[in-house]
């Protein structure tokens, strides 16, 4: 008998239609319609949650108050990706967590308009603590990628 080992090729194809819910819907509509970034304040610990959530996991109460946060903020963490991962974007690209002015928590998005081809040169500019601004796409669909961050004072 042949000792050849066989392989069964399979591909998962599952479609999901995730409900964003009311809170995230308001957030995305504000971005899409008015270029505004909205956080939600917890009535107990007073943190302004960004991205907004309808409840505070720490205090376990509903958040009710919408707070318009600034369109500028500070980089809190970043990475520059040079590896091609299957199914993910073509490198290089930078991703940053930014604490927008007025928010208590940092929100992640792409950091664009920086030359990433030379890592050391890019690191001269991309730093924790660096100031960034929110830049909106012209055609917005109500997704997180409707905006990205760009460095201020370039």
């Amino acid at each position, binding site marked *: 008998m042949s000792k050849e080992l066989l392989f*069964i090729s*399979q591909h*998962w*194809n*599952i*479609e*999901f*239609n*995730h*409900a*964003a*819910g*009311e*809170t*995230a819907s308001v957030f995305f509509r504000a971005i899409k319609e008015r270029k505004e970034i909205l956080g939600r304040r917890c009535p107990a610990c007073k943190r302004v949650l960004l991205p907004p*959530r*309808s*409840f505070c*996991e*720490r205090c*376990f109460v509903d958040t009710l108050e919408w707070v318009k946060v600034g369109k500028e903020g500070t980089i809190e963490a970043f990475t520059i990706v040079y590896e091609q991962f299957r199914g993910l974007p073509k490198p290089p690209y930078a991703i940053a967590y930014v604490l927008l002015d007025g928010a208590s928590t940092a929100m992640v998005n792409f950091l664009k308009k920086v030359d990433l081809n030379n890592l050391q040169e890019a690191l001269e500019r991309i730093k924790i603590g660096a100031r960034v601004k929110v830049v909106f796409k012209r055609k917005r669909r109500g997704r997180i990628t409707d905006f990205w961050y760009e460095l201020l004072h370039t």
Partner: protein
Amino acid sequence: MRVAILGVGQTSYEREKGISLDELVFEATKNALEDSGLNLQEIESVVTAGSDGLDGRAISNMTVSGSCGAYLKDEVKVSDGGIYGLVLAYLRVASGLFGNSLVVSWTKSSEVSPDTVGNLSFDPLYLREAGINPITYSAIQVSLYKHITGARDEDAAKVVVKNRGNALKNPLSHLKRKPSVKEIKSSRFVSYPLREIHIPPESDGACALVISSERWLKTRKKTGQKYAWIRGIGWSLEGYYRDEKKELVKLSSLRKAAKTAYKMAGIKNPAKEIDTAEVSDITAYHEIMIYEALGFCGDSEGIELVRKGVTEIDGELPVNPSGGILSSNPIFASSLVRVAEAALQVMGKAGERQVKGVNTALAQGFTWSGTQGSCVVILDNRI
């Protein structure tokens, strides 16, 4: 160590709830805490039970850890039906290392095709490409069961009428219309011999429980609340390929789980000692098969219970007074809902669907997609 269910929290069950997954879970958790009289600070353990595949998140309890009250707490997820969450929570509390625990389970069926995901729970070598999914698998079981026992289309219809009728008195129910036997018998075949109306709907919903040890309860101020004590618990997993004769419909794992739970609870004659049961009617015929595996009657006698109305809400042994899974099916949470509903019966808090004089109740659940594993819980209100 004695362990009790202190509180139950459920959302309503609907085809599509326009809230996000974490919001859905938050609602059930909040309800359970409120019902138990505990605040989140007092909670020592959280057990979650969900399906990554159905949730569309590769580690889905990451998403809901905040909504189930697990922030900076000891939390663990069971990748199986909600009743398995109760099993693990029970073990954690019974170990003496935790005074109490939340148990939370959920599914938002509206975000995905459950049958597609269910197909992926069958092995890639032999079964998956043969078109096996939770429904076709059930259909094959049912056709063998009918062949062996002579169960008829009318019997299945009677179960549907019973459960859907009971659901009318459950304010949380997804399906709130009692179909006629004629309507059921003309319902289209989804996978022969299963008609569309023999199988459950797909619902959005979440369910949560708060349990604690007797020892921990004694450290709290007495409240006069009624508790549902876990008297017996058993779970078992049978072989993957049930290819031996009749093994496909024997529900061996359920028989084993029931035996364990009965022994622990000291139950010798389940038909007499159990006042009501909430079982996993994943098809109308499965409810009848479950009667036999639980020892409510002898083998092949399940249809007699149906024909005589024994399991009707006013019968000797009412089964699924809540309306069962045939009325509300938040897939992974469905088996935890069985426990929740049995607990409500034992606590006397089941409202309009309350069965009179319930002291002992049974809850039963399967592992999702193909009845390979099963779990049985016996609850009572004796102090």
